[in-house]
Structure formats: structure tokens, C-alpha cells
């Protein structure tokens, strides 16, 4: 199979200055050990295994995939909460994987995180003022000590909370409001990038829409770039400019929102999209539904060649031997890691 490009990178080459976060072939292996006193490494869980992408200024990149696909580990790598086994992560052109101590802290000013569970990500014994103001203790240079209280009040106002509630504790807020507290904390240091790890999946539908709207408003207001990690494909579609699909530690397909949702070429993306229930009963039985067999294999012992081949209906011998690279293909207008990439429309009604 001929390939127009052997580069394992991006959809469209864009000016380097525009790229705010650049990830190249990043890997994270967790050792599996045996024994209590004399630990012996008996294997590795390849949580993230060679992922590359660029994030542009003001852009939202959605990362989707099922549990265990490595999307959360990828988020932690970006934040510098995990040390990459290999590969490079550059924020504003600066390599971050080797940073330590003060350098690492300084880097983190530019990249902040909003976590999934608004119940466990806030310290129950700290007031909202202390939680949102804590980043200023770590980075005192951002706001002078005198102005901090006011800065926190402003932040609460920005995320749609009453600034007079600054002395309240997290338990006095609802789930949606707690998520807003988490967002205010992420905004405190005026970062360029916010990694959102399943930020709305713990919320009810009616509240979820409020928080999604808040994310979009803040992006315009503060020129933020988001890495939006989620499993809810409709939310990701709504908020993302580009979307990357992960499976077992690999990025299997990446492209802009239209390419991924309207013209998916990787079988896994197609199966994932077709499995999402559509809130329209008239489409019942008229959709191209692909129900996958079995479960995701263990990342400690991934299948050879293409990792999706054990559940794929297109798999042939080449899939066992040759690992398909994430690259542009004749049959795909965006990078796809499948030897047999082919457009298949799965979200619209078929007759």
C-alpha cells in the first residue's frame, strides 16, 4: 500500500509559532513487579505507547477512547504529573519531560488541569477561597499578597459563582458548582493550556450543558487552548476543533471534528461512533450499528501488529505482523492507523 506521507504527525502543516503544545512519540510504561523485598520487573503496562500531536493556540483538541486506553495517563504526562518513559513534550517550544524542581513548577504555570470528580478533587477542609487561592501560594509572583483575596473573588465571578461565597466549604456546593470551583482554580495562574480530564462526566445532563458553555466562554475570554479528554462523544464533538481517538495506548485516528465524525476511516472509530446511542427514536433500526465482540485486551500484553485486530472485522494477516502507522492514506484525508482505512458513514441514518 502506497502512502503519500510517511510522516507520523499532523493533518495540516501549520506555522510553528502557532503550536503551543507539541507532543512527539511520547511513551509511558508502568513496570509490573513481583516480589515484596526483592522487586523484579516482570513486564510493563504500556499505558501510552508512542503518541504524537500538536495543539494550536486557542484550539480545543478532544481525546476520546474507552477506559484503559491511556487518555488519562496522557493528560498526566502533559501536566508533568508522570514522567514520560520516552518521547518529547514541548510547551511553547520548551522541552518539559526533563524538567525538575523549580523549572517544572514554572512550566506548570502554563498548563493547568480540571479533574473529573468534583467531590474528591477539592479538599473538604479548605474554604473555596483557600482552594482557588492555593496556586498563588505556589507561584507568589503572579498576584501580590495584598491583591489575592480580590483576585480569588474575581475568579469566582468569572466562573459564575457568587464571590460572597468565598468562605464556604466544598460540601455546601452542588456538583456543577464544585466543578466551577475546580475551573476557577485552574484559571488562577492564567495558563495557556488547560487539560480537562472528563470534566463533565460526573454531572447531570442539565448541569453538564452549563459547564460546557462555561468552558467555551472562558476559551474566548482568556484565549485558552484545551486538551479535552472525555468519553462522551457528543460533548467532545460540540466543544472540539480537532479530535484524536485512542485505543490501547495508541492514537488510532486524528483529524478535525468533521473528518472524525462524518468521515471516520479507522474501524475502531467507526465502532465507537456507531455504539453511541442517538437521542432520536426514529433512527432506531436505521443506523449502521457495529457491535464489537469482546473486551479491550490487557495493555500489559497487547496484541502484535495492530492492537485493534482482535476485535476488528477487517483484520487480515498483515494486521498481525505489521503495525499500522498513524499516517495519511490514499483512502483517508486525515491520519489513520489502519491498513484498510476506508470512509464509512456511521452516524447518519441508513435505509
Amino acid at each position, binding site marked *: 500500500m502506497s502512502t503519500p506521507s510517511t510522516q507520523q504527525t499532523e493533518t495540516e502543516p501549520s506555522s510553528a509559532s502557532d503550536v503551543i503544545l507539541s507532543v512527539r512519540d511520547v511513551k509511558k510504561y508502568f513496570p509490573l513487579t513481583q516480589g515484596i523485598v526483592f522487586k523484579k520487573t516482570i513486564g510493563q503496562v504500556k499505558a501510552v505507547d508512542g503518541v504524537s500531536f500538536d495543539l494550536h493556540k486557542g484550539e480545543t483538541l478532544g481525546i476520546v477512547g*474507552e*477506559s484503559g486506553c491511556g487518555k488519562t495517563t496522557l493528560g498526566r504526562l502533559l501536566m508533568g504529573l508522570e514522567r514520560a518513559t520516552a518521547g518529547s513534550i514541548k510547551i511553547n517550544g520548551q522541552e518539559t519531560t526533563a524538567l525538575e524542581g523549580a523549572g517544572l513548577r514554572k512550566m506548570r504555570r502554563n498548563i493547568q488541569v480540571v479533574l473529573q470528580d468534583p467531590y474528591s478533587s477539592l479538599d473538604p477542609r479548605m474554604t473555596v477561597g483557600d482552594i482557588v487561592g492555593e496556586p498563588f501560594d505556589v507561584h507568589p509572583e503572579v498576584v501580590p499578597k495584598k491583591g489575592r483575596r480580590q483576585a480569588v473573588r474575581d475568579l469566582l465571578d468569572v466562573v459564575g459563582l457568587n464571590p460572597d461565597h468565598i468562605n464556604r466549604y466544598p460540601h455546601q456546593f*452542588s456538583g*456543577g458548582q464544585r466543578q466551577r470551583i475546580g475551573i476557577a482554580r485552574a484559571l488562577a495562574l492564567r495558563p495557556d493550556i488547560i487539560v480537562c480530564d472528563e470534566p463533565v462526566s460526573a454531572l*447531570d*445532563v*442539565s*448541569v*453538564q*450543558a*452549563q459547564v*460546557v*458553555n462555561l468552558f*467555551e466562554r472562558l476559551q474566548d475570554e482568556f484565549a485558552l487552548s484545551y486538551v479535552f479528554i472525555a*468519553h462522551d*462523544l*457528543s*460533548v467532545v*464533538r*460540540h466543544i472540539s476543533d480537532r479530535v484524536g481517538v485512542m485505543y490501547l495506548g495508541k492514537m488510532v485516528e486524528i483529524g478535525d*471534528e468533521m473528518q472524525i*465524525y462524518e468521515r471516520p476511516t479507522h474501524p475502531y472509530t467507526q*465502532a*465507537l461512533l*456507531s*455504539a*453511541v*446511542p*442517538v*437521542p*432520536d*427514536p*426514529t*433512527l*432506531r433500526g436505521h443506523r449502521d*450499528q457495529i*457491535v*464489537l465482540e469482546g*473486551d*479491550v485486551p490487557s495493555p500489559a500484553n497487547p496484541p502484535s501488529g495492530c492492537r485493534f485486530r482482535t476485535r476488528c472485522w477487517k483484520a487480515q494477516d498483515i494486521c498481525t505482523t505489521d503495525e499500522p502507522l498513524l499516517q495519511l492514506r490514499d483512502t483517508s484525508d486525515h491520519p489513520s492507523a489502519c491498513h484498510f482505512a476506508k470512509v464509512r458513514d456511521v452516524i447518519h441514518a441508513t435505509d
Partner: protein
Amino acid sequence: MTETTIESKRGTENEVLANLPWDANAPLLEVDNLQVEFHTRDGVAKAINGVSFTLDAGETLGILGESGCGKSVTAQAIMGILDIPPAKITGGSIKLNGVDLLQLDEKTRRHVRANKIAIIFQDALSALNPVFTVGWQLAELYRKHSGASRAQAKAKAVDLLKLVRIPAAEQRVNAFPHQFSGGMRQRVMIAMALALEPDIIIADEPTTALDVTVQAQVMQLLADLQKSQNMGLILITHDMGVVADVVDKITVMYAGDAVERADVYQIYERPAHPYTKALLESIPRVDMKGQELAAIKGLPPPLTQLPPGCSFQPRCRFAKDRCTTEDPPLYDVPGNRKSACHYWEEVFNS
């Protein structure tokens, strides 16, 4: 010898059930004006304020609502597994083929559970006992209710695992819950619910903890089994997509009230309650890309301090003065539907 004991034990349980005054002409399940309160430190929480619906054999009813709307409490009340106290059923009836379950004593109720009505919980990992094998847990349930021998029950467990399409069931029956993946655990829960061939299965958020591809497998399995066994299925969920895919009719709940009842096509095409309408509008849609989502302002009220009049009124864009004073009854809407809104016509025609 074992055969006779099986007969006698089976006899008692089935005899008790057979002696109940079943009415074959009554609906399979008829919940009428069910009311449940919880006595908490903050006062009385009205978890359910008069929920009514019916379910026939082979039918799927969706109960849709957000957390705290009372959908799980409804399921627990039907199953008879509410913690009383703090909960208290203050009114209404739950009739299974004409027999009011709320009037039965606990022992008879226990026979009804599993034999007639079974439940599938959301979190299969915590619903299964980690120190017993899956097969043992399946067999125990079957043995207790049917009086079968251990060997028979074990064989039944294998059959059940096969029924829910677990590969290598003969070996898997000796595995522990932690050796199963999330989707397989949920299948075990389904197998457990099916063990005694109940008339009704209540599935309380059965796929919420699962990934979408696995969710699709489990929902398909549930729908297939329901069809082949002609059971009534009550699907409790917050996911508007899952509901649209499988159910026949819907009851929408908000703050303990059933606010709208209709068949699934009607409700998605033309909601008659402002809450249903707002919920449908808040789902991200392709043609709304780049626009603000139509979020519902505010939060559901705490159940201990429900606002006077309509509970949804503080968040409702159709609300008028009347809504703050007068609790809306269930109005009849054309097409054999119900809506608890004074201004349902306005919602319906907007």
C-alpha cells in the same frame, strides 16, 4: 431422596405464590400514586410524590431523570428493598397482576422477588460478593428459591452464563468477580436476574459504568433476552440516547414527580412538559456546533425544601404566577399522554 426434598421445598415457595389472588386480566405491573418519604436530619424529604405508571408483558418502560429525582427509589420500592426507616411509603399501591405488593408480608414479598421481579444494579462490582465465585453466587440464589441441589444449581449457573453469552462458561463459572471485566460482570448481574425467569426486570442504570462499545453489547443482550422471554423491562437511566434506542414508553421524573408520560416517539418529537423539552434541548447536537448549549438554568431543588406549586417552576421559562401557588395535576395530552404542567399546550405548540 433429593428429588422429594426439592419437590417439597419448591412446593412451599410456589404454593405461597400460587395462592395469591392473581388477576390475569390486570396489567402486569401497575404503580398508582406511589409516595415515599425519607426522614432525615434536615426534615422530611419527599423522594416520590405520587408516581403512577403501568407496564405490560413484553413492554419496555423507561424512567428518565437526573440524580435525586426519585427514579432509583421507585425501583427499590417496587422491589421492596427500601430501607425502612429512614424511608417510609406513605401512600399509593404497587400492583403485580392485581396483587398489591405493599400489602404482602415480608416473607411473601421475598418469594415475589427474584421469582416475579428482579433487579439489575448499576455497579456490578459492588453488587457481587468479592470472596465467592460467580458460579457460587448464581447457584446460591437459584438454590434458595427453587430448592434445587448444589449440582443442579451449578449446572443452572453454567446455563445462565451461556445465556448471557459469556465465553467458556464452564471454566468461567469458577472465577471470582475481580477476574471479570466490567461488561462481563454486568452480564453476570443479568444472569442472576434471569435465574428464576421473572416477569419483570428492573434495570437501574445498567450501563452507566460501562464504556460505549460494551454498553452497546449489554443493551443488545438485555433487549434480546427481554424479547425472547417476553418480560416487562423497566429501564431506569439518565441517558436520553439509551432511552431512545430501546424503550417503548417513557416516564420523565423531576424532583420526585412524574412530570410527563408518553410513548417514546411522541416525547422526542414533541415534548409536552417544559422539563422534558429543556432536557432534549440541552443535548449537544451537530447543527448547534459553535453555539451555546441550551442549558437549564439553576439546580434541582433539595427534596426537603420543595418550592410551593410546581417543583420545576424556578427553572422554567414557561412559568407564570399560577405555577408558584398551584401544584399542577397530570393533565391529559392528546395521544394518550400526560403532562404535569399548567401550560402544557403552550409547551406542546412551541
